[in-house]
């Protein structure tokens, strides 16, 4: 395990939205809160101004996150966060635009906006909290629900194949792609920082626990048990390199999976057109 950089414990209090009551609507132990902490600390360390950050989300447990933070927040319709965010970023190219989304939001109903944002390589950081299920609506299968797993809409075990969000993003053209878990906090925070600093479309997939539904229906236990499970099942990209496909079965490969700093960014390219043709 990488050395733990000293983390401030109370910095997030500076970023909670005044006049909105905390704690959140999330279940006790929901990984969403851990990711929120990591995001806030990352922003704090990078020293961004609150005014310059727009957080855009869709609908889902995860997507409730922006409302608690004192940034510009746009809690949109289910699956459409990246499309709204594209409007924000393109209108205000100097802002840091961050999309926070769930696996259902990003990949089921929102799959098209996801691949197109990757393709355009628009400078948006997407934090996709992958809990393998629809939390908000009570535990239905999602496009990341593994084959054979149980959910309220796969009562006999899921017969569908699942997406690997990172592979999809790479196939669609994203220029920064990484995977983390809520157990591996320091790596998570660092990856969010890198993603925020990357110019172009960046994806951080965070493996997280919905013990309330996924954990319960698949006998994976409570929040603690699920975090332990993530710990046991994770291998770093470095270690994964020397592992066979079989060894990697059912493992979470965590770390930076893809980075391309050459690829031009959408808003930049458009600006060039404006500069060349402005009357």
């Amino acid at each position, binding site marked *: 395990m990488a050395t733990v950089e000293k983390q401030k414990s109370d910095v997030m209090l500076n970023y909670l939205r005044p006049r909105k009551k905390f704690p959140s*609507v*999330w*279940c*006790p132990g929901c990984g969403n809160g851990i990711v929120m902490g990591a995001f806030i600390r990352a922003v704090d360390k990078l020293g961004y101004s609150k005014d310059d950050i727009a957080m855009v989300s869709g609908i889902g*447990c995860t997507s*409730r996150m922006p409302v608690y933070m004192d940034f510009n927040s746009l809690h949109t319709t289910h699956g459409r966060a990246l499309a709204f965010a594209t409007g924000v970023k393109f209108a205000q190219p100097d802002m840091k635009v961050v999309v926070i989304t769930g696996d259902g939001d990003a990949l089921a109903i929102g799959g098209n906006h996801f691949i197109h944002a990757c393709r355009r390589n628009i400078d948006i950081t997407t934090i996709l909290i992958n809990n393998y299920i629809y939390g*908000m609506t009570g535990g239905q299968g999602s496009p990341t629900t593994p084959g054979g797993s149980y959910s309220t809409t796969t009562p006999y075990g899921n017969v569908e194949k699942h997406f690997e969000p990172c592979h999809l993003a790479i196939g669609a053209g994203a220029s920064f792609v990484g995977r983390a878990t809520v157990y591996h906090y320091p790596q998570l925070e660092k990856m969010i920082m890198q993603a925020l600093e990357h110019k172009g479309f960046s994806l951080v997939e965070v493996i997280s626990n919905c013990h*309330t539904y996924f954990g319960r229906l698949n006998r994976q236990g409570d929040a603690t048990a699920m975090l332990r499970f993530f710990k046991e099942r994770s291998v770093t990209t470095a270690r994964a390199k020397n592992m066979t496909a079989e060894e990697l079965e059912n493992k979470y490969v965590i770390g930076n999976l893809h980075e391309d700093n050459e690829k031009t960014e959408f808003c930049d390219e458009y600006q060039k057109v404006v500069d060349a043709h402005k009357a």
Partner: protein
Amino acid sequence: MAGKIIGKVGIPQDRFEIRLSGSGGQGMIFASVVLCEAIGRAGGKNVVQSQSYGPEARGGASKADIVVSTAEIYYPKAMKLDLLLAMTQEALDKYYPDLKDGGMLIVDSGLVTEVPTEKYYGVPFTRLAREEAGHIMVANVIALGAICALTDIVPLDILTDAVLARAPKGTEDRNKKALEIGYNEALKQKK
């Protein structure tokens, strides 16, 4: 003009409203469904069950309501409770104001410490579940047994059938036992 109708006939209050409340994991919804089904199967009465949904229903206090009436139930939501079961302090605090004057209050006396009235029944459902029924999960069924004993809303045999029909296979004995524990424990207290 007011009172031309209501003044004459009033709204018939031939209804009995029950709320089972507790925290998310305590199985209040399951209990209310089973209780409702039992009352319905017993015959002669109409029943309507409802509950909270959405993120609001997670964590914190959870509730499930039943309205019982010999007449048609026109308004399906609980308004003034005739019976409130509170399995946690938080649930009690939240829902006590909805209890009718003279309505019956039943609490888990192991978890609820401050009750704003003296007229209530206290049974340590959770402790009984852990210590006598063999699993904390059946605290809700013990509570059903107690309700059965303290009211005449449904006969124990029909309630037992209803519980067993909905309980997962392999838990029949445990649930039967739980019902009895609750029933007997409450009978002791019946005033």
